[in-house]
């Protein structure tokens, strides 16, 4: 049996998204900037896609900038806020310790350019506290950027409350909604979001397309210079097939959200319950306040990559925050941020589900995992030491 349980990494493109894309390669393949009819047909698709996406997140079409994905949108949001702040002498940014690297690495760059960044604690449950955001806001704060939901442990942040707070304090608010879009409701107006990033391939759209939403009136800094596409704020011929696919995928995801959310959540809860029955397995991140499809546990005494490889042999695709899967010697910054010690962080296992997963698949995972864990533990000096101590 093949079980794809790595939907937080990327998703399978939905049939609706794929069907919407295919004609863009062979029929409406024009450049949307061309005045001839094939170009104009592409331009029409671009306009329609922009309207669809804007409607789905409570924005205006003019507030949508198409990017290559979430990372680019995150980069542009931070650069935009930093440039605006610098003009007013505001060089302080508030973020959290467990943002995606697209945010953290851009913040590191801004720190080298003289910005000061406050990285808020996310505590053991992986949720930032509103009062901490409030305390951190200073007269020179240019931006608050907090992710909507965490990519590793799936914890949902109090975005609506932070948005209201930032509005009251007159501070720009950005949220990286890459993991949330298509899975949780988004309304940038009601949630007082000034800037937002999302990525198509996390909700059954294609890779290579994303959205940078910017509230009207905020002067945008371009990070890619060239032609006048996207009102001069993002140069480069529009990736029409991917943008069309993204709009179709988001439409489908939002239309079905009310059905998919409880369905996926039930699968998630069944999986969590089953995993926690195993000896020395802990859930990472808040149990309730998490994405419908996110399961993240630490299996004590074993290392994540070997666990993933064993699961893969059984056809199960998952991910881990162990150092070995990150290409560095350190385990995931997210797991360290919620206070896990290194051994336990190395033993993390993320299973991220979508509406394409079935109950049979959950049963299959729960059947295959325990013997694998037992086998790896039987050869683990860390596990033996743990047991001796007890």
């Amino acid at each position: 049996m093949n079980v794809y349980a790595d939907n937080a990494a990327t998703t399978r493109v939905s049939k609706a998204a794929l069907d919407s894309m295919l004609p863009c390669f062979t029929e409406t393949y024009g450049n949307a900037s061309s005045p001839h009819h094939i170009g104009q047909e592409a331009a029409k698709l671009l306009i329609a896609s922009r309207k669809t996406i804007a409607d789905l997140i409570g924005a205006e079409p003019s507030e949508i900038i198409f990017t290559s994905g979430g990372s680019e949108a995150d980069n542009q949001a931070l650069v935009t806020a930093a440039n605006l702040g610098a003009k007013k002498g505001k060089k302080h940014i508030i973020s959290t310790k467990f943002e995606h690297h697209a945010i953290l690495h851009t913040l590191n760059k801004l720190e080298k350019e003289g910005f000061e960044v406050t990285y808020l604690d996310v505590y053991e449950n992986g949720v930032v506290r509103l009062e901490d955001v409030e305390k951190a806001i200073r007269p020179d704060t240019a931006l608050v950027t907090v992710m909507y939901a965490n990519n590793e442990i799936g914890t949902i942040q109090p975005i609506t409350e932070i948005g209201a707070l930032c509005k009251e304090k007159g501070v720009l608010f950005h949220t990286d909604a890459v993991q949330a879009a298509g899975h949780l409701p988004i309304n940038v107006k009601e949630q007082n979001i000034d800037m937002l990033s999302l990525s198509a391939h996390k909700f059954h759209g294609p890779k290579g397309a994303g959205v940078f939403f910017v509230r009207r009136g905020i002067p945008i800094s371009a990070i890619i210079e060239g032609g006048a596409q996207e009102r001069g704020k993002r140069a480069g011929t529009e990736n029409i097939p991917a943008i069309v696919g993204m709009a179709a995928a988001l439409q489908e995801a939002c239309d079905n959200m009310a059905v998919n959310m409880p369905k996926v959540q039930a699968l998630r809860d069944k999986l969590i319950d089953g995993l926690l029955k195993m000896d020395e397995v802990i859930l990472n991140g808040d149990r309730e306040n998490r994405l419908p499809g996110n399961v993240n546990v630490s299996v004590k005494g074993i290392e994540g990559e070997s666990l993933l490889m064993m699961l893969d042999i059984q056809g199960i695709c998952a991910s881990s925050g162990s150092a070995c899967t990150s290409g560095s010697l350190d385990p995931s910054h997210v797991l360290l941020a919620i206070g896990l010690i290194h051994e336990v962080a190395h033993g993390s296992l993320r299973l991220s589900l979508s509406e394409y997963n079935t109950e049979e698949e959950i049963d299959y995972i729960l059947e295959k995992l325990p013997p694998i864990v037992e086998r790896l533990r039987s050869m683990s000096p860390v596990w033996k030491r743990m047991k001796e101590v007890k």
Partner: protein
Amino acid sequence: MLYSEKVMDHFTNPRNVGEIENADGVGEVGNAKCGDIMKIFLKIDDGIITDVKFNTFGCGAAIATSSIATEMIMGKSIDEALKLTNKAVAEALDGLPPVKMHCSVLAEEGVRMALLDYYTKRGEEMPEECRPKCGGDCSECE
């Protein structure tokens, strides 16, 4: 990152897993911070390694390098075992991805640490050039 068939073979069917009671030499290398800990147990009779076992907490490459290293020193003399290099371990596995080369270093160091323990237990001095280089303390490898 792709593993060779040899790595997959030793990962899925690791040789010589276990412990040796009253082993003549035990070596533990690596640390939890980097995510790989390897423990090697040796039984030595008349200067010959007559049994070797390992326990490893770590990634696929760490398990595979431990496994093949035990095979490579089984039945060998101490002098031969001391000649085991991380390069030889990696080559025996038909290569390792660059980020996993440190696992082959752990295997070499694990064997040396176990032999150091053997010398120490016998109250003998281990030849200077054969001593462990880093003791598998991964904090230096960052």
